[in-house]
């Protein structure tokens, strides 16, 4: 092998090694930080079991929100039309959090309750997270969400 070729070979090997390390790192980081979205009925069927930390999507059930007076602990029920799951969250809820509106909570199951570390609500009057809309076409009608509940919802 002449010197030029040898140098090129090393360069190619170094690039392949760097790419392999980078791919491994990226794959690892992705795997650790990916959170799947499930609806209450999927959770109750045990489909979320494999993922300790996941996102729960659905509607905040009517008359389910309560907060002990003077306490930061909030309780509410997430409903997808077929099943209901109690959620507990300690902290300030987003401005657009309301009953009978879409919500996505990130957290884990503890016993029969979903303990949320983060709660996201829809972001304006006409917008509903597409992924929640996709997942719960049924719940939509049951919960009487107006037809204008966002273009993403109309896509189904």
């Amino acid at each position, binding site marked *: 092998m002449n010197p030029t070729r040898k140098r090129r070979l090393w360069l190619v090997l170094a690039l392949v090694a760097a790419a392999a390390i*980078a791919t491994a*790192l*990226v794959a690892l*980081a*992705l795997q*650790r*930080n*990916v*959170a*799947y*979205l499930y609806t209450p009925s999927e959770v109750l069927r045990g489909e979320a079991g494999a993922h300790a930390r996941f*996102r729960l*999507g659905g509607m905040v059930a009517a008359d389910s929100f309560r*907060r002990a*007076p*003077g*306490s*930061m602990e909030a309780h509410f029920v997430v409903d997808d039309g077929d099943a209901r799951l109690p959620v507990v969250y300690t*902290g*300030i*809820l987003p*401005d*657009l959090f309301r009953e009978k509106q879409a919500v*996505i909570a990130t957290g884990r199951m503890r016993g029969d309750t979903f303990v949320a570390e983060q709660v*996201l609500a829809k*972001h*304006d*009057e*006409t*917008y509903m*997270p*597409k*992924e929640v809309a*996709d*997942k719960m076409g049924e719940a939509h009608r049951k919960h009487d969400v107006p037809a204008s509940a*966002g*273009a*993403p919802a109309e*896509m189904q």
Partner: protein
Amino acid sequence: MLPELGQVALLLALLVATLQALLPLAGAQRGIASWMAVARPAAYAQLLLVAAAFAILTHAFVVQDFSVQYVAENSNSLLPWYYRYTAVWGAHEGSLLLWALILALWTAAVARFSRRLPDAVIARVLGVMGLVAIGFLAFLIFTSNPFTRLLPAAAEGRDLNPLLQDPGMIIHPPMLYLGYVGFCVPFAFAIAALLDGGATRQGHDDRQWRDWLRWTRPWTNVAWAFLTCGIALGSWWAYYELGWGGWWFWDPVENASFMPWLAGTALLHSQAVTEKRGSFRGWTLLLAIAAFSLSLLGTFLVRSGVLTSVHAFAADPTRGLFVLVFLGIVIGGSLVLYALRAPDGDKDASFAPASRETLLLVNNLLLVAACAMVLLGTLYPLLADALELGKISVGPPYFALLFLLLMAPLVLLVPFGPLTRWQREQPSKPLAMLVPWAGLALGIGIAAFFLAPQGAWKTAAGLAGAAWVFAGTARFAWSRFAIKGSRFTAEMLGMTLAHVGIAVFLVGALLTEGLSMQRELALSPGQSVALAGREFRFDGVERRIGPNYIADHGTVRVLRDGRAIDTMHPEKRSYASGGQVMTEAAIDPGITRDLYVALGESLGDGAWAVRVHVKPFVRWIWFGAGLMALGGLVTATDRRFRRKEAAP
């Protein structure tokens, strides 16, 4: 009547854009001077027409013409007058019109300030910009017409999204778009160069080609500076308006603007190498294509509704298809052209492993890797959804960890770049100049590690990195001043400012992450919470009436050693039109720390959920970004870029 005129203006602008694209491109290919001469007048005419359409839409907002659907959806008779102007770009249709207006502005500027380029080159550059304009104007007219009438006219408008009723929103989108669209200039230049074949053909005058590239450099710098400002403004807005106290969320829409920034930063540096040394020619062209393609992708991601995000305001997926096809044509077409005409690497000037070229190559590899990482994390949920792998989201730790890993070596290398010579350098020379400063930075880092009350690693890394970059950059400036008779050009000054901006940003970002303290708790009037040596006393909430909202106006007194140092007024606003609730955080800004108080919800009996933050050095984040942007602008003023002949 006026909105119909706006419609006509847009249609005419589309016609003019078609002329501006087809005739000059064909003329340049065949060498017909009269066809090429169409480019400039067409560019000015396009600006006139799009500006007229924009003025008409603005007029409709100012006079509250609720017979125009877009106005009725995004305005309200209670909206204060200044927000009537900014409401124009408050939603999809208007922001696209703003995009088209800014493209027309850039095009006209290129037409005006391109006297020294050969006619064929400028005809091609303006022609390519015309092609982009066709895409956006057609998108506006056929899928997102802002002038659609509402019959019968609405009696009252639905109001502008309250999140956007804010001074920061007045300038954030225009700045961002000035950056996005500005990358169209280096892109158009790259396509023109590939069409011309000057970069590739044997025996072509290489100096002339580099002279054209020198002409594009200030444009790239200015676009990059605007994009930097736009991103920083968006981050600042999220900080005070969303009420969570965060400054960057790795949200898909933030990522969408960050990817062109990373590619653009790589482009700035690689353009400098190509222009000065003639190396990396193919790479520079590819980066120019990438930066603009990512800008288009950003527009697509934000405007198509495929992403769930805090920014996805009532997006519409049916429009996604149009942008996707447009994106496919632009990216696919450019890459095919690149594949056919890419310059031959063997013609590039050679350089030794220890040289400034190598350092800039590493800079480019790291920035592009970071960009690819962000792209993967942003698109992965879409891919997984399309492949039916489940509905997933990628958490911020993925981005934060990998970004840190990729940027740490870059921060280490920044001071070496300016001190290393082109082509070949004795590695011992820049090392000798920098060793004392490396020692100083290390010492500061170790001291910070042991003195920091919390977040020791982040604090130490932030201070050490900042000291290293600052001292290394100052060393470069000193070495220039120390030599008598050596010039300190605008380009060097801009680079110095931007690199110091990195240091300032590092202090802000890492110290805020490491040292921030926050409490979320229930407070009754008279109760207080202690945080970071201060006492925050909650003095209750009263009702106040704003122009188009009712506010719960809170009062929080801040005491230090029993002495009142500040009174803060966080608000919870309920907007009259849609009943939307908005948090207005109260911020006491400071150079070394921000105090941040936001109201949560009423808990009954006068008690409220209250969020209190103390955020050290958070302002330095935006100050650093501002310095970087300033650096970009200063670089663009370098006289060398405006001279025709190359400096030796």
